[in-house]
């Protein structure tokens, strides 16, 4: 039977964390109670993208976009919208309402209308546990075209023509990588999906695996066909249990339909996929370490060459593609390289998914055509900085990337342009940093991450990152000197040029780019002993201005009781006892507590 309405419930991990798990049951309960359960189809989808506003419920056919939905709101939606046909305006996402309080459809919202969703094409729209829904959205047609109409070499050529470049960070041409593996003759070859997403704050791959697992399988199968591999591995971190579950379901469904296994589509092509779980080491996202991990060894990088395309898994030619790269492939094969190559810029084709985070209103997942400016992403899609704060920088590429200052915000997003300003595309983390942040402290944060994640094999990364971290800590504590800044820069350059693998080579990027763009901020720490962002504890002091209304909130909340003052009188902080926890600043209703 055909239902009159579809209710899409975002079940991405972010929405689940915000309580979306109970929504489905609530809908079941209320729809059944109202006697309309059979008229409505409930679909648990993957991530919708606008995570800041989740959990979401999207009701079709109208495409009404309900945001921040709580369990108790379900009753209202069922009774008002689904039973009586009246849209519940107060629950609709505010950007989905026009000035005249008319409800815009989901895809007309600015957050989405500026995006071009290729990799994310199905995310949030289909039930990832149902292969039929994927097929209904033209799934497996790309594979069909490859297997039936094209030779492996033609598929490789098509990929080269599309201009797709690796979305995992390096940006190497996917087609050329395939060609290299295609040309290496061997009795056995492998394809691997790198789903070891590890950048702090990045969750593009997780959203794709959870929201559209079949697109990854299809991409991997096409890759296998192209290079002549009949075995694929998906290397996914164990911290992604939902993704693993969805993948398992997807694989078994594909096997049941004969989409995985022997003689797929009667073409004579055999292919099967195995999931391998990673323990969560960041370095295992590096190709050679990933291979070592699959082989059962310690996750440590190896020297290249030989490249995996020549000698990879178990010594056989292997290609490793990132999740997002693979998600693009079925669509490229289905719509053709020409279609794809028209999107984006001359050297960077297609789109890129970013996890937009930090000091931004609409934090979440966005997919934009290459060539979009950072300003568009931050202000038009992201909705700008909350609390009318000034933007200081945008950090792309996570701990391997760099900070791009406000002055370069009109930079077009491309592999090369980002490299030129000392950052990199990376896998797609995009952190927006506002004026209240300290760049030295952010450097320290990323370096802490790298120190933790260094595998310990090569000297510069193992010891150098630790020393850089200690230098940054010295600067943050106000004990550093100008000489220390020079030493830091010096060491960063050596670590970059002499490290064994990508992790170490990219680890100094935050330091180097921030020194390039924000050197005065470093210098303030060591010369004036001031942290301009008001973050580095040893360098700041909390004081209460005359704006104080004497409400005693700060004094009550101070964990060490160092704030004195009578009701309705100016309070004072005893800085000798103050532990600089910042609670007073947070609780003050009139912003009278400031750090200097």
């Amino acid at each position, binding site marked *: 039977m055909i239902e009159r309405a579809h209710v899409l419930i975002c079940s991405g991990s972010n929405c689940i964390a915000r309580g979306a798990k109970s929504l489905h049951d609530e809908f079941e309960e209320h729809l059944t109670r109202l006697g309309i359960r059979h008229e409505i189809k409930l679909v648990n989808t993957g991530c919708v993208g606008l995570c800041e506003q989740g959990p979401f419920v999207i009701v079709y056919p109208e495409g009404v976009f309900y945001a921040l939905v709580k369990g108790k709101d379900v009753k209202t939606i069922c009774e008002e919208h689904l039973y009586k046909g009246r849209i519940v305006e107060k629950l609709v996402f505010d950007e989905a309402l026009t000035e005249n309080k008319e409800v815009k459809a989901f895809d007309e919202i600015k957050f989405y209308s500026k995006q071009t969703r290729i990799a994310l094409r199905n995310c949030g729209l289909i039930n990832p546990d149902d292969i039929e829904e994927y097929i209904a959205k033209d799934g497996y047609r790309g594979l069909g075209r490859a297997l039936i109409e094209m030779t492996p070499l033609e598929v490789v050529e098509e990929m080269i023509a599309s201009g797709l470049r690796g979305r995992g960070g390096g940006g190497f041409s996917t087609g050329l990588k395939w060609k290299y593996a295609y040309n290496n003759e061997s009795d056995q070859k492998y394809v691997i999906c790198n789903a070891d997403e590890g950048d702090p704050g990045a969750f593009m791959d997780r959203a794709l695996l959870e929201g559209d697992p079949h697109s990854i399988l299809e991409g991997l199968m096409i890759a296998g066909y192209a290079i002549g591999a009949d075995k694929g591995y998906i290397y996914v971190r164990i911290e992604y249990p939902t993704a693993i579950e969805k993948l398992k379901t997807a694989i078994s469904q594909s096997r049941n339909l004969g989409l995985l296994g022997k003689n797929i589509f009667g073409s004579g092509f055999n292919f099967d996929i195995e999931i391998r779980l990673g323990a969560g080491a960041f370095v295992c996202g590096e190709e050679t370490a990933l291979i070592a991990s699959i082989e059962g060894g310690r996750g440590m990088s190896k020297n290249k060459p030989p490249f995996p395309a020549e000698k990879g898994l178990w010594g056989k030619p292997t290609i490793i593609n990132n999740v997002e790269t693979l998600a693009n492939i079925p669509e490229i094969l289905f719509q053709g390289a020409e279609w794809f190559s028209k999107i984006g810029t001359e050297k960077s084709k297609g789109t890129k998914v970013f996890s937009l985070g930090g000091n931004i209103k609409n934090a979440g997942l966005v997919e934009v055509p290459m060539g979009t400016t950072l300003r568009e992403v931050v202000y038009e899609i992201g909705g700008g900085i909350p609390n009318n704060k000034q933007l200081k920088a945008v950090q792309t590429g996570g701990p391997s990337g760099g900070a791009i200052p406000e002055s370069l915000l009109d930079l077009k997003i491309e592999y090369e342009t980002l490299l030129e300003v000392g950052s990199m595309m990376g896998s797609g983390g995009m952190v927006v940093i506002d004026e209240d942040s300290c760049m030295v402290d952010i450097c320290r944060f990323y370096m802490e991450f790298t120190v933790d994640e260094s595998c*310990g094999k*090569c000297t510069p990364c193992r010891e150098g*990152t630790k020393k850089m971290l200690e230098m940054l800590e010295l600067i943050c504590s106000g004990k550093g000197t100008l000489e220390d800044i020079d030493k830091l820069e010096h060491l960063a350059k050596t670590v970059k040029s002499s490290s064994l693998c990508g992790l170490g080579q990219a680890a100094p990027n935050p330091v180097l780019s921030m020194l390039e763009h924000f050197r005065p901020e470093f210098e303030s720490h060591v010369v004036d002993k001031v942290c301009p962002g008001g973050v580095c504890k040893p360098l700041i002091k909390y004081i209460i201005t005359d704006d104080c209304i004497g409400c005693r909130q700060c004094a009550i909340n101070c964990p060490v009781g160092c704030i004195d003052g009578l009701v309705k009188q100016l309070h004072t902080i005893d800085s000798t006892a103050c532990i600089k926890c910042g609670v007073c600043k947070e609780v003050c209703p009139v912003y009278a507590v400031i750090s200097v």
Partner: protein
Amino acid sequence: MKNITLNINGIDTTVPEDYSVMRAAEEMGYNIPRLCFLKGINETSSCRLCVVDVENLKGLTNSCTLAVQEGMVVKTDTDEIQESVVQNLQLLASNHVFSCWTCEREHNCELLDLMKRYNVENIYGESENFTKKERIINDSSFPIVIDSGKCILCGRCITACEVHTGLNILAFNKRGNETYVGPALNHNMEDSGCVYCGKCIQACPVAAIKEKSEIDFVLAALKDKTKKVVVGPAPSVRVALGEEFGSKIGENVEGKMFKSFELVGFDEIVDINFAADLTIMEEGHELLERIKSGKNLPLFTSCSPGWINFVEQYEPTYISNLSTAKSPQQSGGIIAKHYYAKELGYNIEDIVFVSIMPCIAKKEEARRPEMESRGTRDVDYVLTTREYARLLKRKGIDLMKLEDAKPTGFLAEYTGAGVIFGATGGVMEAALRTVSEILGEEPSKIDFTPVRGIIDIKEATYKLAGMDINIAVVNGIANIRTFFERMKKSEKEYHFVEFMGCIGGCINGGGQPIHPAKIQDTVDISALRIQSLYEIDKNMELRKSHTNKNIIKLYETMLKEPGSHLAHELLHTTYKARTFYK
């Protein structure tokens, strides 16, 4: 092989296509710094010191594993490279404990050499602003100590263990800057399954993994006027000891060694070469008995304690095949205490027997509970060749300046059969020389060349007493493992197999002088030492153990005959299956 022409520092050079850039540069006379690369063993390119600048390649590239390519343009000495090497040395130095004057490797530390060459200051290690990694010393096993305070995490010991033994005893533990080398999960060395071959020690560029020193005990014994200190040098010591004093590799310094014993103050000498002759008498007898009875064949030699450790832990079902004859080291101690002391009129309690061994496992062998006879330890202290060299240096004795001397005492006399014990195939050859003669094979042979040479597994068949006797000679734990796999599958019946834990035999033992990686890569150290041993053998008047007059006398006056009741009590031992942490 095809040749490749590349340009290094502006000069064209043509080298075979299998060369690395490092090798090409080194053959031109450039000294490329390195701390991790050890050819065929550790090719992980982790130290990042051998970096070069290759045209059209981003950043700096390690040259150790970089294959030469036609037209490649390489620079080995730019400011950036200098800077990078210095900074990486500073980083390596930051966690290193610089107490070089007390260090076992003060004369051949590869890190110190580079620190000197690049004039590196320990800026991090000496600054309070930087933390030092916690120093962990794993000294739970008797012979081997792992000291993280010296370790630079090059990984050579780990791969050396992997390549030479296949047992993978050592591994990196933890991650990042908290990485430690040791048995998995930082378990004790003692029950790690280690056979104590010491290949890890030979590979270490610093003194992060080393033998537990017994020098001080020996010095104390030498000072003690009530003690009679008897020294027993192993066959291989005399062709390697000089290397610690600048001799050519493998130079025979036997005469100088004997002179040094006088100067140091040893009271008597029982040459382990003599004890080796004795071992042949017992083991040869055992072989004959077993061939006659057909029981417990094949007979396995038992001189190499690394090999014994392997059997007891990994192939315990073969324990009954082991010769029960004690190794020459232990026999040496027994003879010193239970025979020689009496002959010389000493009290057995006053004898201190010190052996000098090319081996790490010998230290552990001497400490086995079963290596005790009539209430006294067979061997009191075991020094490695390196330790003896250190002792000499501490005593201010420059070995190479000494005159050659003849050893004192009649137990320093040996035959050529005893001296070749130090080489792979040597025990087999020594046994064959004696056994074939006892069995009256005519003409009895001296040179059994098929068992010689550094080949993984050697096999031959000899006719003895009208029978075809199948023998094999296997050296190196990894090869021993291969041999066992093969033997278990094969139908072939072996009668006598010689096993040595180290490739090349004792001359390449874990206690021998250590050479820097570059020398290890380019010089066949084992072959040179073996050559010297066979040279000594060739020039000996007596080359068969049973012709050693003092061996004959020993049997006449005390032991009666090989395999006698007394011989069994003193010169034979037992083995037991041992477990380890898995």
